[in-house]
């Protein structure tokens, strides 16, 4: 092995922040609303059933508090979908993938392809109906908390997966 340690001036270092991020598919917002809608329908039906069948719970102020909390939750959900959706962006560079998300608390994930262990294509029933899929990327540092880019077009997700798999194979080949 040869010892090499070239000096890189700060200007030469590629800047991740200069990359233009692209948004996920607009129709994904609809999928998000449908998912949340289903979740809230189940929750509300459960609560209504509780208040109808359990007599001691039928207190006016309790019902008011539960209703208000629920309204607040729905409001926060709508806000997070609306604002958070704008921040769901991603970008592909030659050697890594970047994904940004979050409403109040924003996080930017960057995973170099050389460290990717495997990559999965996931699609749920509602997303599939709208032709959407998501990509899940795992590294050795992951405990199921790595990047998952949701709301991609099925074809884009497939291409992305093929691209990443090619990269992994190329790096593995290099190591051998």
């Amino acid at each position, binding site marked *: 092995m040869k010892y090499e*340690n070239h000096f890189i001036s700060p200007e030469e*270092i590629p800047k991740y922040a200069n990359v233009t991020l692209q948004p996920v598919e607009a129709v994904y917002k609809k999928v998000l609303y449908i998912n949340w809608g289903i979740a809230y329908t189940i929750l509300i039906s459960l609560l209504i059933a509780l208040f109808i069948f359990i007599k001691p719970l039928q207190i006016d102020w309790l019902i008011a508090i539960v209703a208000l909390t629920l309204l607040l939750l729905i409001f926060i959900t709508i806000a997070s979908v609306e604002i958070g959706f704008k921040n769901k962006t991603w970008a592909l560079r030659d050697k890594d993938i970047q994904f940004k998300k979050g409403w109040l608390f924003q996080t930017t994930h960057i995973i170099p392809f050389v460290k990717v262990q495997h990559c999965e294509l996931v699609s749920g029933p509602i997303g599939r109906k709208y032709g959407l899929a998501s990509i899940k990327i795992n590294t050795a540092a992951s405990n199921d908390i790595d990047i998952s880019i949701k709301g991609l077009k099925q074809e884009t997700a497939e291409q992305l997966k093929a691209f990443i798999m090619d990269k992994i194979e190329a790096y593995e080949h290099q190591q051998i």
Partner: protein
Amino acid sequence: MSTNKFDWSVPQRLSPVALIFILGKIIKDSWPLVLIVIGRIIINDQNDEKRNTSVGIYFILGIALLILITHINQLINFFLFRIRINGAELVVTGGLLSKSKTIVPINRVQSVHLIENYLHKLTNTYAIKIETAGSDATEIEVKAINKEKALSIQSLLQNSVPETSQKNIPEQVQIIGIQFADVIKLAISENHIRTFLIIIAFAYARLDDVKQLIGFDASEIIDQQVNNARFSISGVLSLLSIGLFITMWVSFIRVILRYHEMKISANNKGFQMEWGFLQTQQKMLIQNKVQLVSWNYNFVRKLLGISILRFFMMGENITQTKQHIQLPVMDQHLLYQLISPYQAVWPSSNTQSNSTHIAYGWRNTLLFVLPILLASSTAIYFWNPWYILLPLFLSIYLAISNWVKYQKFKYWFNENTIQIQKGIWGVENILLNFNKIQHVIVKTSPFLRRKKLATVELRTAGETIVIPYISIEQAQYLVDLSLVNVEFH
């Protein structure tokens, strides 16, 4: 070059000693059940003789049978267990009803751990644990195998690891040998508060066990005794000194168990470690599997010049303390020698230190400690106003520790490495080579964005490093630098 006299392409069996371990495990697993059965019989005899006990006993016997069946599987496994090396793969087969075959590519082996307890010593065997890297760390465990075979497979696996750049270290040099005097120093400088809490937790858990076993609550008797006792200053003092004595004694035993006769030798692949009092353990630490290193000391250890060095390995289970590779280092020079194969240039030696933003010192206090203090104080006020002092003191302590945490947090970095120093009452130093990073995260909150700050998380296959509240430009630069190291080297 191989000096191995065993042909590992031929499947090797377990040593017959393993059977003793399997039987031991059955007894160990079943003793609570046996005890419960005996306890039930005695209690039933005493309480009411007419009650039909047979149903209960059959039920218990049924469970015992079930446990036995699962162990029979283990017994069968003993006879069918085979380990061999097939080309570049380590193959372990076993099982009768559900056959199992584990194949591990040898270059994925992270460490080979040899364990020798007294039974192994008597029978000239070793237990082997083979840890591999990967997201769901596969582990091969060999309960007992002939000593020569164990050493032979360890050296075989070690030799298959690609050489690191350490050419200057001769064949095998011993660099650490912990003496008895060192053990005393380590015991004195242990974290006695932690030991005390461990004793309390242990005692409490045992009390609960006793309660379940004998069926009555011993805590009532203790309460009664405590109420009857008269508290005098001398009584409290003697209680405290007994507590201190027990704590010191336990610390001493813990240190002896952990570090007794620790030996570390270095070769060109990594370090070979050996330690243990009742059971001797040998672990091979392969240099290029080290993700990051950290060393820490408390106030007393700093005075004595001791630090505890820890290697974070790839795929290591952070929650399992038994897997941690940590060793006491008795002087600074040795510390440097041990770390240098990972990184010889510490950024703190030739670069300027950086600090986090001052908000890191007070924001957690303001956001979490104060609201909890206010809420709990209001509730406590209506109960007994004097008790407010308790949350108040706790909050002051937390506020001070948050501030100290901010003051102590420093970091340095050069083109290849980042070094972090942090701590509250002690100091921990972390050294991370950027090329070990797997995943980078930049986090912001509305407050951080307003102040143009960000928190950077550098995830490795061993541990995550967090650099909180630094300027967004610096955060971006750190991320770019990390990525360059990973992607272009």
